[in-house]
C-alpha cells in the first residue's frame, strides 16, 4: 500500500512538472482597466484581432493608474486605459508612443432613489458634488483609477479637500464593488455608464442616476504603445499592430458592435 502511495505521488509529480505547450504565436501583454475587462469588451473584440493576426493579447486588468505604471516599468507592451491627462503625461515623459483616442462612454452620478441631497435637476457635476459634500455620504474609488482621477479633478476644481472628511468614504476597490458599497450605505458615487448599465440589475442596486450629461463627465479611452527606446524587450511591432487595428475601421466597428447582456451599447468608438 505504501508503494501504491509513492506511485500516486510520483504520478502527481510527473503531471505537475510537465512543461506547458510552447506558445504557437507571438504574445503581447496589454495593461488595461477593470471596466474594459469586466464588461466583456475584450472577450468580444480580441478573438477577431487574434484570428486576423495570430498575435495573442494577454490582458492584465488593473486600475488606470496601475495599468500605466505597468507600462512605465516595462511590464506591458501596450496600455488601453481611460485617464487622458495621465496618458499624455506618460507620453510626454517618453514612456509611451503613438497614443490614440479609441472610444468613450460617460460618467454619471448615482445615488439613492429618495435623492436626499436633492441632486436631480441639477446640470453641473461640480455643483452636485458641492451639494453632496457635508449633506450626504459620498463613496470614492480611492484607487487612482480613471474614474477616481475624474472624481478628484472635480473636487480639486471646487477647492474642496474631501480626504479624511466624515462624509467621504475611500474604499480602494473596483467600480462594481464601489457601487455595491454606495448602495449599502445609501450614498452617492461617480460611476461609468458602462459598469452601471451592466450591473445595476444583476447587483440589485437600489440606486438611480441623479445627474448625467455634463460635458465634464466625458470618459475618453485611449491606447498607446510602450516606447521601445525605454524598454528594448517591449514587443513594439506587435503592439503597434494591435493599436493600428483598434483604431482601424474594422476595430472600431468591433467596439461599436459590442453589446452587454441587456443589449446596451457600452462604448462609442471615436478614433480619428
Amino acid at each position, binding site marked *: 500500500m505504501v508503494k501504491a502511495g509513492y506511485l500516486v505521488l510520483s504520478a502527481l509529480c510527473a503531471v505537475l512538472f510537465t512543461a506547458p505547450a510552447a506558445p504557437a504565436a507571438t504574445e503581447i501583454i496589454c495593461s488595461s482597466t477593470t471596466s474594459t475587462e469586466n464588461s466583456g469588451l475584450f472577450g468580444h473584440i480580441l478573438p477577431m484581432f487574434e484570428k486576423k493576426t495570430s498575435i495573442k493579447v494577454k490582458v*492584465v486588468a488593473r486600475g488606470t493608474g496601475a495599468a500605466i505604471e505597468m507600462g512605465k516599468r516595462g511590464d506591458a507592451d501596450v496600455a488601453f486605459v481611460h485617464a487622458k491627462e495621465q496618458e499624455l503625461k506618460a507620453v510626454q515623459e517618453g514612456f509611451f508612443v503613438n497614443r490614440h483616442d479609441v472610444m468613450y462612454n460617460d460618467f454619471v452620478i448615482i445615488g439613492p432613489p429618495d435623492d436626499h441631497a436633492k441632486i436631480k435637476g441639477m446640470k453641473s457635476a461640480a455643483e452636485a458634488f458641492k451639494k453632496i459634500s457635508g449633506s450626504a455620504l459620498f463613496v470614492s474609488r480611492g484607487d487612482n483609477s480613471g474614474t477616481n482621477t475624474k472624481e478628484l479633478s472635480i473636487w480639486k476644481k471646487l477647492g474642496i479637500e474631501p480626504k479624511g472628511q466624515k462624509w467621504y468614504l475611500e474604499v480602494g476597490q473596483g467600480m462594481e464593488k464601489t457601487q455595491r458599497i454606495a448602495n449599502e450605505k445609501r450614498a452617492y458615487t461617480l460611476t461609468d455608464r458602462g459598469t452601471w448599465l451592466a450591473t445595476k440589475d444583476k447587483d440589485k442596486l437600489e440606486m438611480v442616476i441623479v445627474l448625467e450629461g455634463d460635458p465634464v463627465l466625458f470618459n475618453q479611452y485611449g491606447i498607446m504603445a510602450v516606447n521601445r527606446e525605454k524598454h528594448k524587450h517591449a514587443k513594439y511591432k506587435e503592439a503597434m499592430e494591435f493599436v493600428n487595428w483598434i483604431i482601424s475601421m474594422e476595430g472600431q466597428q468591433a467596439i461599436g458592435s459590442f453589446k452587454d447582456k441587456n443589449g446596451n451599447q457600452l462604448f462609442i468608438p471615436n478614433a480619428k
Partner: protein
Amino acid sequence: MTSILDGFVQAFSLILHLDAELLGIIFLSLKVSGSALVVASLLGLPLSLLLGFKRFPLKGLCISILNTFMGLPPVVVGLLVYLLLSRSGPLGFMALLYTPIAMIIAQTILAFPIVSSLSHSAIVSVDPIIKQASLTLGATPLQVSLAVIREARYGIVAGIMAAFGRVMAEVGAILIVGGNIAGFTRVMTTTIALETDKGNFELALALGIILLAISLVINAALHFIQKRGMIGVTQ
C-alpha cells in the same frame, strides 16, 4: 440566503458539466500550488534537519525568524516578487513576470517557512534514542537523517498539508505576480476574486465549493499515505 443555495446548486452543475476552461483553471491551480509545495519541501526539509541536528550561533534567532515568516502576508510576498521580477527590477531580464513560474516562486516563499518550521518541530520531538541507536549501529549521517525523518514523518506530512492549505487558498500573491490572465495565469482563487468583483456571487461561491472539495480529496489522500506509513513501521 438564496444566493448561498444557488451557489451550491451551481457548484454541482459545474462539476457535472466540467468545461475545458474550468478544467484548465483547476489544473493550473494544482500545478502551481503543487510545484511550489514540492520545491518548498525539497528546500525546507534539509533546513529543518540542519536546525534539528546541528548547533550553531544564532540558531534560536533563525528558528524565531522562520516561525515569524509562517505569518508572511501573501500580498507582501506578491509585491516583493513583483518588484524582483518586474522588467525594471533586478531579475527583469528573465521575463518571468505574469507567468506560472512567477506564481510558483511566490507560493514557494509562502510555503517554505511552514514546511521547515513544522518539520523542525517534528524532528526535534523524535526520541533522541533513535539517533543514538543508529549511530551506535554504525549508520552514516545520511542514514541517521533518514531514520529520524522516518520517525518524524507524521509531523512532516502534517506540515506539508498545512503549507498546501495555505498556498491553495492564497490569492493576494498570485494575483499580483500572475496578473490573472485568462487562460494563462488564471487559477481558482483569482477566478473567485474576479467573479466576486463582477458580481457573479453564485458562480464565485460554486468555484469556492469546488476548491474545497479538491482540497478535501488531496488531504484525504495524504492522510491515507500517512496512516499506511505508520502501520508499515509498527509491523
